[in-house]
């Protein structure tokens, strides 16, 4: 009983900690505009207070004194048109076009209440290295309104404030992201790229064993043997994906992304199944090389999303690749010693090698289907 009370008290304390704010602040009107340039594309996120939208457009269709999500959604087209009429983006080569028709609508909260969030992209006639922002939203309703503009690019964000008396600002030198930035992105891409991880681990699970002629696994006697094996595999994978990453990024080869993604998923299945039933015998580095070619195309689309500029592509490519290696090697360094220590246990052989590989193969198989037909079954 006492213990139950204790738990209840803890829960209440947790609730209090996460309790919503007391009341929305009274604050002068601001909108929060975040611009993320990617080469000739600018991602736009715009948070506009519902109170301000309501004052300008009237959102309470049902006249019940409340703005509901349904009412906001119903007004989506109108308010998107209204909002983007209050914003003009331009680069040296001319005006950008906000693709407001594709804008997504959501909601978020700031210190003074609920905001509508518009997520859209703007397409510019040239690289957005100098980005002109002209802001006129809401000044007709509230002349003390301000647009807090954040330009993301490189390591640091830049913030400037536009207001009635200063409606325009040209943001100079959208950071040519530093090489370090792309190293980090490469590492993060590996750590968070669940399919690359699955593939890598499927190749690593058996690294502390040798396949015997009868197809069974035997533990390696020395850590060096395992390390050499892993080095061969990782190097083969790296060389292979570097080749295709380069070819794709410089535009020599282009494959449909659905095919690439589905093939990457298939490579996961192959690598995992090979641990259960020998398909390639001792040629795991060869497998790593061939499948690595496919993964390179995947990396290239990730790199393209990061908005690499054409002028600095080679440097970006190298940085990103270095990041990918850092990501891989850190995982290897973490995994290999543990696997070596555990190699003689039944648990490792049965649970990690057998069951782990089977699980990876299963997930990979679902990915193949998902990606081939463009459907989603798994939450990841």
């Amino acid at each position, binding site marked *: 009983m006492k213990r139950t009370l204790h738990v209840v008290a803890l829960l209440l304390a947790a609730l209090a900690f996460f309790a919503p704010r*007391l009341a929305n602040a009274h604050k002068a009107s601001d909108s929060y505009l975040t611009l993320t340039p990617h080469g000739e594309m600018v991602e736009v996120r715009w948070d506009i207070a519902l109170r301000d939208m309501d004052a*300008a457009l009237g959102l309470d269709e049902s006249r019940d004194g409340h703005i509901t999500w349904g009412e906001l959604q119903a007004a989506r087209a109108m308010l998107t048109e209204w909002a983007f009429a209050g914003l003009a983006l331009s680069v040296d080569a001319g005006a950008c076009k906000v693709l407001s028709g594709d804008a997504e609508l959501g909601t978020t909260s700031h210190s003074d209440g609920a905001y509508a969030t518009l997520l859209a992209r703007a397409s510019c006639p040239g690289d957005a290295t100098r980005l002109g922002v002209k802001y006129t939203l809401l000044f007709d309703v509230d002349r003390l309104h301000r647009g807090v503009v954040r330009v993301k690019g490189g390591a640091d964000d830049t913030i400037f404030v536009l207001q009635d008396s200063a409606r325009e600002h040209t943001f100079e030198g959208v950071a040519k992201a530093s090489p370090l930035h792309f190293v980090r992105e490469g590492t993060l891409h590996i750590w968070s790229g669940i399919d690359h991880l699955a593939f890598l681990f499927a190749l690593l699970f058996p690294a502390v064993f040798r396949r015997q002629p009868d197809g069974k696994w035997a533990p390696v006697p020395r850590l060096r043997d395992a390390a050499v094996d892993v080095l061969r595999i990782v190097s083969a994978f790296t060389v292979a994906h570097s080749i295709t990453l380069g070819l794709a990024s410089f535009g020599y080869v282009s494959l449909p992304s659905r095919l690439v993604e589905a093939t990457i998923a298939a490579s996961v299945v192959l690598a995992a199944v090979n641990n259960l039933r020998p398909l390639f015998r001792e040629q795991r580095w060869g497998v790593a090389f061939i499948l690595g070619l496919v993964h390179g195309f995947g990396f290239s689309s990730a790199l393209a999303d990061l908005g690499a500029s054409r002028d600095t592509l080679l440097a970006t490519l190298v940085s990103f690749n270095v990041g990918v290696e850092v990501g891989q090697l850190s995982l290897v360094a973490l995994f290999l010693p543990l696997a070596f220590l555990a190699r003689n246990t039944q648990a490792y052989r049965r649970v990690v090698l057998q069951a782990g590989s089977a699980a990876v193969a299963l997930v990979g198989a679902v990915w193949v289907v998902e990606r081939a037909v463009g459907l989603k079954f798994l*939450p990841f």
Partner: protein
Amino acid sequence: MSRRRIAAFAVFATLITTVIVVAKPAAVNAANVDVRVPTDPNEILEKSQGQPARRKGRAAAPTVDEAVSLAQAEIDAGRASGDPRALGRAKAALGAHWDDPAAPASVVLLRATILQSLHEFARADAELTGLLSRSPENDQARLTLATIRTVRADYKYAETECPKLGDALSAAVCLGNAWSLTGRSAAAEVKVGEALGTLGQGGAPRTRAEIVWAISSLGEYAERQGARDRAEAYYRKALQVSPSDPYVLRAYADLLLDLGRPAEVLPLLAPYTEQDALLLRVVVAKKRLGQTGAVTVARDLAERFAAVRLRGDRAHLREESWYEREIVGDAARALTLAQENWSVQREPADARVFLEAARAKGDLAAATPVRALLAETHLEDPTLLALARSTP
């Protein structure tokens, strides 16, 4: 497969799946994680202020009178609620008249009022001085200008001009404020008390705002004489007339904090925490009471200060200085903010914040400008004088 093997298989498969599920959201673009797409169309997101017909349906440009009454309505609503958005809307309602140098007196008065509320005292002063040179008989301009100069610690104007006001109560409070700030609070209390006493005796009809202004001024005069009981009675009376008046609520809360009665601040201000200045008093009260909830509320307040700073506003300096000193415990920053605030406004509350920050930092020399003003004006506020003596 053996049973153990199947069990182990299941455990590990679950483990891997969990890791994958947990790892994935962390990989989602962190920039937009706060954006929600609700699933229920009936989810209430925000209160509505009604249809903006008067704004949207405005086909032709409004006449000057329409614009003025619209702007005045926004200002009145803003005063009552403490909502700064009202000022921007009032400014927008004036439209092109805002920039019109030949605008009629009613527009100039509103411009000055808005500028004053934005703490742009010099520009407000210029508007009013210009208006008074054209129409010296404009009492509203005279009263507003006297108020602005008094806030800026320039009391000569009030001494000469307030008595010229045609309205007895306005004249009394206008003059009383200047007197009280120059060591004559007792006389001020008598004068305003008398003017209030003649109410309902055939004088001009009074708005609630005027009465509250007069009574709360009496409260300040009493406080400066060290008569805190009397001050409390005045504030309570003012709150009976207008229970949600932001100015009176703030003054009374400060008195309660000075009296060492922070517990009473909480119920008093609970309905008004949307106003940053009042939320600050709540945070201070909670902290002095040792309530654990103080941390959460302080975080809210810090967020609000950050939002105000982000937009480039410096209207909160007085409150921020107090916050930094008492809640955050950063005396150096508190002093910097208090100094910056002192360059904008010089009311007793500003002096108080300055002295407290200087004492907290142990920087005797920093508060010299405040001590000089206290000596020059003979302000009698015992709390302030004690602080000035004890600094550091």
